């Protein structure tokens, strides 16, 4: 479904991503791991169009989408939930999700239909699904960190993506919140058939959720395979996992 080949991105002289390679098949949950600064966020932003690659290919559903603007990428069925919370802080939780639904339905240029009549049901469905329904009326800027991260996902879901990319979805969450988020990710994949690509530092979560793992280090893909393959990979042992491999 998604295939990234030899992707490269530099910020000035600094090479944040030098050679990223990644394959995601339809229906999978794939994790990207790597130490801080490995280039995971940069890779995700390259895939979703927030950043333009210097070189390389991003093929999604058979078409090269590298360098397309973010809104175009999104319309092809690919959406991103951010590592750093990036919501619409002055709007209510409900409206945050509604605008994403409206955008997907291409209703954003309707001028004279009241928005309250549109996309309500679908928005409630998403909020119920992620467990934010009781906070629908709150201004999103006032949410706790954990809830904001859930809202991040809810907004991305509003686009009804075929491939949902999540950048550290549970970072900063409490253990209970993390468990809930994990359950949600499994439901999204299992029940709704959404293909999922995510990155996380929490190895337990990664090995529990992911079917396959890609390992990055200093902007390079050093391994990709099933959990066991990655766990046994020498490069990975050496470079990253160290003692965590047997955990």
């Amino acid at each position: 479904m998604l295939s990234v080949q030899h992707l490269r991105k530099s910020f000035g002289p600094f090479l944040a991503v030098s050679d990223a390679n990644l394959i995601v098949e339809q229906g999978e949950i794939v994790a990207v791991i790597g130490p801080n600064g490995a280039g995971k966020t940069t890779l995700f932003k390259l895939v979703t169009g927030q950043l333009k690659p210097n070189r390389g290919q991003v093929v999604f559903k058979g078409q090269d989408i590298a360098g397309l603007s973010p809104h175009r990428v999104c319309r092809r069925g690919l959406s991103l939930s951010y590592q750093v919370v990036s919501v619409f802080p002055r709007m209510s939780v409900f409206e945050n999700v509604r605008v994403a639904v409206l955008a997907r339905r291409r209703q954003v240029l309707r001028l004279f239909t009241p928005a309250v009549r549109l996309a309500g049901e679908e928005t409630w469905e998403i909020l119920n699904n992620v467990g934010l329904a009781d906070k629908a009326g709150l201004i999103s800027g006032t949410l706790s960190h954990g809830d904001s991260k859930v809202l991040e996902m809810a907004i991305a879901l509003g686009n009804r993506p075929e491939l949902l990319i999540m950048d550290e979805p549970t970072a900063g969450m409490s253990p209970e919140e993390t468990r809930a988020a994990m359950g949600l990710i499994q439901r999204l994949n299992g029940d709704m058939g959404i293909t999922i690509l995510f990155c996380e530092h929490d190895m337990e979560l990664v090995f529990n959720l992911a079917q396959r793992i890609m390992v990055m280090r200093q902007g390079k893909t050093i391994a990709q395979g099933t959990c066991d393959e990655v766990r046994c990979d020498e490069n990975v042992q050496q470079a990253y996992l160290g003692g965590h491999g047997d955990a």
Partner: protein
Amino acid sequence: MQKQKLLGSRSLILVALLLAALALFPSMASRYYIYLVALMMVTGLLATSLNLVLGYGGMYQFNHAVFYGVGAYAAALLTVRGGVNPWWGYLLGPVVAAALSLLMGLICVRLSKLYFGMLQISLGSLVWAVVFRWYSFTGGDDGMHGVPVPRLIGSIDGAYYFVLIVTVVCLAVMYLIVNSPFGRVFQSIRDNPERAEAIGVNVRQHQLVGLVIAGFFGGVAGTLFVTVEGSVFPDMLFWTLSLEIIIMCLLGGWFTFLGPMLGGGMVVALRAVVGIYTDYWTMVLGIILMLLIFFLPEGVLGFFTARLGRGRAVREGD
């Protein structure tokens, strides 16, 4: 599940009362006050049109007076020089303003916030300079006086009711727009343009549409000014007025729909009062701006709705 409506019943009653008062006003007031209230409505409409892009779109439009002036001049020029029926002038004035807004928008919208504003100021000044210098066509710094007004609205009462009706209709349409999907998405762009783009919104296109709408209604306000005053001046396009309009929005409350209406009314009333005592209107304006920044950053209406909103949220909670 909460029910969502476009307008609450309490707001509806308030609006109806206000409208009734405005409709009865000419029968109770002197000519001067009828004129003053008409001007307050025109100016409030102007501020509201700016707030479409300022408060709802988060775009720092620094040249809004240009569309006010161009709407007014287009209507006046079409009538006086083009010999067109004034009604057509009123209809076409806003269209010309919207077209100019589209043109300027196409040039400016690619730029980031500050550069957007700066280029707007320079383009706006350019338009002002043309109007100011082209003596033979626009009347230069004298402006144009005695612009014909249709007989139906030629009296001060007639002009007042015309302004009232057009303002109410425009406000209603703008209210629809800010509460439409377009408006909601515009707010999301204001809050976080990068994320809006990421959820599939063509941000530049959206902003451009917003600018055209704001320019159009700014032009409507301009043509209403012609019906009230029967004249147009180059000052209508000058950047100091643009600044004043921004202050009106801030003063009334730029995160509320009716705040700019209130702000516009307040500034006109203040100027009328202050003008009796002093010529230093800009100084007074500066002081207002300073007080605002320190004491009422959300504007007057923003301040009160925040107070009321807190009480209401508690009630809706049960």
